[in-house]
């Protein structure tokens, strides 16, 4: 069994890599890469050569290509001691056009070209854009740079190798004191006298590596960070995983003690402090609160994260669906061709045939008539607003469960073992609950892990119609805003969920039904 599972997991991971590779090929190679600037206001304000340069820096940042400017090249040479600082500053300025370069500059430009062209880079020189004979236009300075498209394999490798980062005491430079890890029984955030163990790091990216707080699951860690890819336009600069998991809504203030000893009502979450080099001196606010450069903190917010909302709504809807759908499905099969079966079939046809959009709007209109809130409001404490999204999600699930359970049970009803049980004198109730249901439920059980896991991804239409701040719209939003990082990240997330769901489903049915075995020995 273990061997089989490992094989399955490896198989699944390979297909996840292939899925990500396919998606990357689609969005990085086939899609027009100028589209990513559609929502970028910085881009639209740039002019002339500066605009081109901005494009290339962004493309490099988002993994399209490797890009080196002439100035960077010279800086590298200086740093490695090949040329002196004087030489660098004398040759760094290039002429407005190629024939206006001085001889020394020409020499280094040729070196630059040779060096990068030999590595497969393409060298581009942008001549100055002139406003008149003497004045250079805004952003029109001459530019010289080299770039190379990143091949898919490199991109895949850097994506997957950066997927999980483990914090390390040599991660950052320029810390105060020696790098190391300290342990405290009394977390200073709570004033220093409350019992709350924590592990702190110096030299790590995060200040707190392991700590307790009042939020579920109470014990938190910052040692392992998951990076699914950086968002460009959906949530600029943040990681996809963070975008999905970060709390939303209004700030929650509590009394906290800053490292400097200042106690204040604040929404800052000191446990999330990360290192930003030389940040302490940049503002008086930091200087009065912090003692070192671990100043970058997140804030505590009142509501759930995107995944949180989707999961709460999804899981309640699924529970509701199982509690309603399973008994109804059993009833339909027991009273086959009777009124309840016909009504149930009508309902199933309605859900299958009518576009999802149409019936969700119908429920919204009906719910609105009944006085339920039809839109989600983060600031409202009214729990009633959960009802309509939950019901809208549960109704199709109920139909689906009813349809399949009825089908499986009716198929089982004609089998020999049922006829035998009946001839043995068992009552219909016993036959149904002890024989038929047990066999018919196996495919239903197989779907349970999937139902739970996919509650996290959220539902696109439901969340849009009821304005739920969930994760369901992340993919469509990312596609609409051409945010490649988010598209790849979300795809990876979906793919991992889907293979996990299938494997867990298989494990679950082999537990539920001893006849099912995945190891060769038992066969």
């Amino acid at each position, binding site marked *: 069994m273990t061997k089989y599972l490992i094989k399955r997991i490896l198989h699944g991971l390979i297909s996840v890599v292939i899925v990500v590779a396919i998606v990357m090929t689609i969005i990085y190679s086939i899609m027009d890469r100028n589209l990513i600037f559609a929502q970028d206001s910085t881009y639209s304000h740039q002019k002339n050569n500066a605009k081109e340069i901005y494009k290339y820096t962004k493309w490099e940042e988002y993994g399209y290509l490797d890009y080196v400017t002439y100035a960077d090249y010279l800086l590298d040479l200086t740093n490695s001691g090949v040329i002196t600082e004087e030489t660098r500053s004398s040759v760094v300025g290039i002429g407005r056009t190629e024939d206006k370069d001085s001889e020394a500059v020409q020499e280094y430009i040729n070196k630059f070209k040779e060096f990068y062209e030999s590595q497969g880079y393409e060298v581009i020189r942008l001549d100055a854009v002139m406003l008149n004979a003497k004045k250079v236009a805004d952003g029109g300075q001459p530019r010289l740079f080299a770039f190379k498209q990143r091949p898919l394999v490199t991109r895949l490798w850097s994506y997957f190798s950066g997927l999980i980062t483990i914090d390390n005491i040599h991660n950052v430079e320029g810390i105060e004191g020696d790098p190391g890890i300290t342990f405290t029984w009394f977390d200073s955030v709570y004033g220093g006298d409350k019992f709350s163990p924590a592990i702190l790091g110096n030299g790590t990216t995060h200040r707190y590596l392991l700590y307790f707080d009042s939020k579920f699951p109470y014990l938190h860690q910052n040692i392992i960070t998951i990076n699914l890819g950086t968002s460009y336009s959906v949530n600029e600069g943040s990681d996809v995983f963070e975008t999905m998991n970060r709390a939303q809504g209004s700030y929650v203030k509590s009394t906290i003690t800053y490292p400097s000893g200042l106690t204040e009502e604040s929404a800052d979450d000191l446990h999330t402090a990360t290192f930003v080099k030389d940040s302490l001196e940049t503002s008086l606010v930091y200087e009065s609160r912090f003692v070192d450069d671990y100043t970058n903190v997140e804030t505590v917010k009142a509501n759930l994260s995107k995944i949180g909302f989707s999961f709460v709504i999804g899981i309640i809807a699924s529970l509701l669906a199982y509690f309603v759908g399973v008994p109804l499905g059993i009833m339909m099969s027991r009273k086959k061709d009777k009124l309840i079966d016909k009504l149930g079939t009508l309902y199933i046809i309605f859900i299958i045939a009518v576009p999802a959009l149409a*019936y969700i709007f119908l429920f919204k209109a009906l719910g609105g008539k009944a006085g339920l809130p039809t839109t989600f409001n983060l600031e409202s404490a009214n729990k009633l607003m959960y009802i309509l999204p939950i019901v809208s999600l549960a109704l199709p699930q109920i139909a689906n469960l009813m349809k399949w359970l009825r089908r499986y049970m009716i198929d089982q009803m004609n089998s020999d073992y049922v006829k035998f049980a009946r001839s043995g004198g068992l009552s219909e109730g016993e036959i149904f609950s002890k024989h038929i249901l047990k066999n018919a439920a196996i495919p239903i059980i197989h779907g349970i892990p999937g139902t739970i896991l996919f509650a996290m991804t959220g539902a696109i239409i439901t969340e849009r119609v009821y304005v739920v701040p969930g994760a369901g719209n992340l993919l469509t939003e990312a596609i609409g805003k051409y945010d490649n990082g988010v598209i790849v990240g979300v795809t990876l997330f979906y793919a991992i969920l889907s293979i996990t769901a299938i494997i867990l489903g298989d494990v679950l049915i082999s537990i539920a039904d001893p006849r099912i075995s995945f190891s060769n020995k038992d066969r």
Partner: protein
Amino acid sequence: MTKELEKYGLPEDELFARVDNSVFDSEKIMAPRYSYWHSVFRVFFRKRSNIVILSLLGVLLAFTYIYPLVVEYDKYANLMDTAAKHLSPLESIRQFGFNIHWLLGSGAAGQSTFDAIWFGSRISISLALICGVINLTIGVLVGAVWGFSKKVDIIMMEVYNIFANVPYILLVAVLVMILTSSFGTMVFALTITGWLGIAYFIRMQVVIIRDREYNLASKCLGTSIVKIALRNILPFMTSIIVTIAATEIPSYISMEVFLAYIGMGLSDMSLGRLIYEAESAMVTPGWGFEFWSPVVISSIITIVLYVVGQNLGDASDPRTHM
């Protein structure tokens, strides 16, 4: 005698009757004439409700394909007429006089909602039918090969496992983005991986039937695989294929509505786009008609297509032909 028959509720022809000895008749060895498609339609029309639903489908198709040919429709014809916008049926009939165009009121540009719906459903239904034909053809052919060949099975299972994980919306959206949001693109986007699910389903059915005794017997007697596929297995599959078609074709209409709603749909005026554009009217009191009419009509179209397909699927199962 007849009284006693009535008492037991038996008809008169239940009784024995004398048959004369005929040399000619006794020499004739013949099964009742059986024609597959004849029986399919006999079973299909035995249910009276099917006739009603089929005629409803006929009316819908007539409105979808013939009505736009007869009527001239210009969305922006009443654009300058401020009094013509967002009217309920009664108001618009009062405004323009009684005419079939104004049965469902008018929309944001003063256009007739009724006309817009049928022009839209022509695009939506055509899309669904074309995608259905393409996906079913490829799906059934690939599924049959997939089910028969063990080598193909290994490869196709991997392909299926991978493509089942690529989010469908992503694929469609990226294709719409790369190409244009035209009708052709939409067909391409919906069919590029759409056939995989059908092929997988057909593969399972083929695997189930493939190793039954009568097929083994056929194989032992030297029947070629192609002949087994066409003569032994295809008749079994007909009802399954029709049932798949019954669920698939309405699902493309739903899919189109969904894609239009999330802003990734067709640039043409399809049903989905109508709903998408009229969404804001849903919450405005008195404008509800321009939103609900396309929603209701598209639901009717999908339900009718589904029910006709399902019942046709039932009728095409030879086991119901007794």
